[in-house]
């Protein structure tokens, strides 16, 4: 059977594909990293859902370069809420990244319970586009489900940022990633996603991050290995 015939067979609605990612694609905002978008269900961060991001090196593991392009998109129309960030979000840098500080809200609750409450409230509010929560300690399934439901009702993008690498602890959140720094940039492991699991890490370079922020998508960025060479050449 040739390829064209195979494609026409696969397009038949009765054919179910094992990787599951081709099904009803959720509405997403692209992460602006080609290599990552290719692996995320729906091609980006899903709306109305909470994504868990594990920071392999703690603060500065690459969470900001990873999220900034998407946050810039979201902040054009809606608010970005930061809950208990580990350090001061430096306004000039966020502005450079295309996120208007006037669209940012910084909450510093006194405890984990209050943080979870604030995150749920913000997620539930349609005016808040993205809600980023730096939540320490253990979060039980019930709290995760509450956040997920709140994100769904507010149609917002939730990000739960926690220290650690691949957690053995299961979580009901549909998308879990871990990010860590490498020499060239960052390495993203997709720990859990809807559909086929992905074992190989996605490598992102600083070059790609610059392009992503600028909204450019040069051909060289398309393939991870190629862009890695490119950035080595420019540095």
């Amino acid at each position, binding site marked *: 059977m040739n390829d064209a015939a195979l494609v026409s067979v696969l397009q038949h609605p009765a054919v179910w594909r094992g990787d599951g990612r081709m099904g009803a694609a959720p509405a997403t905002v692209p992460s602006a990293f080609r290599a990552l978008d290719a692996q995320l269900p729906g091609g980006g961060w899903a709306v109305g859902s909470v994504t868990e991001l594990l920071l392999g090196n703690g603060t500065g593991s690459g969470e900001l370069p990873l999220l900034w392009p998407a946050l810039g998109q979201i902040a054009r129309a809606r608010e970005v809420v930061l809950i208990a960030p580990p350090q001061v979000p430096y*306004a000039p840098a966020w502005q450079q990244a295309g996120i208007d500080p006037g669209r940012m809200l910084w909450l510093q609750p006194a405890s984990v319970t209050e943080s979870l409450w604030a995150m749920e409230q913000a997620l539930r509010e349609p005016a808040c586009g993205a809600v980023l929560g730096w939540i320490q300690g253990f979060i039980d399934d019930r709290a995760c489900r509450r956040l997920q439901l709140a994100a769904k009702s507010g149609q917002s993008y939730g990000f739960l940022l926690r220290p650690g690498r691949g957690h053995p602890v299961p979580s009901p959140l549909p998308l879990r990633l871990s990010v860590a720094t490498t020499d060239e940039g960052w390495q993203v492991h997709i720990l859990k996603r809807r559909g086929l699991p992905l074992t190989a890490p996605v490598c992102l370079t600083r070059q790609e991050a610059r392009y992503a922020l600028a909204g450019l998508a040069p051909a060289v960025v398309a393939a991870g290995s190629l862009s890695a060479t490119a950035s080595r050449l420019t540095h």
Partner: protein
Amino acid sequence: MLADTLAAGLGIKPGMKLSAAFALANELDIFVRKPDAEAQRLGVLAAWALQFTPTVVIDAAHTLLLEIGGCIKYFGGLARLRELISTGLKQFGLTVTSGIAPTPLAAAWRAACNRPKAVMADKDIAWALAELPLAVLPVPDTTLDGLAQLGMHTLQEVMALPRAGLKRRFGTDLPLLLDQALGLAADPRDPFTPPDRFEYAVDLDYPVETLDGFGMVGQWLFEALETFLSGRGLGVQEVLLRLKHEDLPPSELTVRFGVPGRRASEFTSILQERLERYELAAPAFTVTLIAAHLHQLDGMPLGLFGHEAGNANFQLLLARLSARLGEGAVRAVATVSDHRPELAWRMAQPGEQSTPLPVGERPGWLLAQPERLSLRNERPWYGETLTMEGWPERIESGWWDDSPIARDYYTARGPSGRRYWIWYDHSQHDWWLHGIF
């Protein structure tokens, strides 16, 4: 003493002694009249009634006089205006009788006798008052007794008497009253001027001991506040709840709202969040709501179906968040045009605009307190050896004020790949960590 229908059925009559009434039915609920609370409520209703007419008079004997002659057309006819007023009052759970007449006294008397038919022309007043009983006259009991002895039962009979004789027999008050009611003599009144602050106290028969109970009292007070504000197109942004305890000094609770508003339901939801962090010092006997500053709320249409979407909801979220997390926990950042990195940002109110700064690459995270770095093998160390990348950015500024700096900023990288923003201080000759990329 007054009795409702059920009590009257058991033989209890107005004017009976309490002990005699209990002898007839020992399960009586006795409600003591609170004149202060009544006056307070009437003041709120007068403020509410200002939405219909600018001239509202608080008359004695629980009567509000509204001068509606000038505004009937605006509200689309008398029937419609009456309906607006009576449905509004019904929502407050009040039983109201009304009367309409060209003079205040005639209107008040007809209302007191529950004659709702409107009297519109001056010539009809005499006819409209004719069959009212003498008891409506605000005169001393001796005068009423005197009239009764003369065989008078209705106003018509009194009005028919010559005024000179009445004056000789009962003093000047009675004939003047009659003339005022008929529109023959002037009857000037002081219109109600609403206070520029709102204060409302509830004395509780049973002290509130729980936060739930307190929340209920708060809701009730907010409803009174909404009534007061809605008449005048006003809103409040901050209210104070003062609780009086038996043997402790009064405690106070300030509740702030994001934007001026007047919806009792929104206030109540914010109060509920605020109460999460509040503890009653002791059972409270009196709860007072004080709104010291009233804001104009004109030009801000309130949603037809409750909440309107968009910004108003976000402001409400901000108010809820700061009520529960505390004022300082809800903040935003803004840029400041200054070369010194630690002064290039500031805390701001949510929504404040920032101007982009023409600066080089800056880290997303800034340490609130720069951290001094130790040296290992002559290289700065922060959990790992830091290697400088590229050329430094020299920032030398602030010589004109108290915090001059002379620094070389580097982007540094550790073996883990993490990138830091560090500076070499030219005056102290040491390394500092200022930010994390």
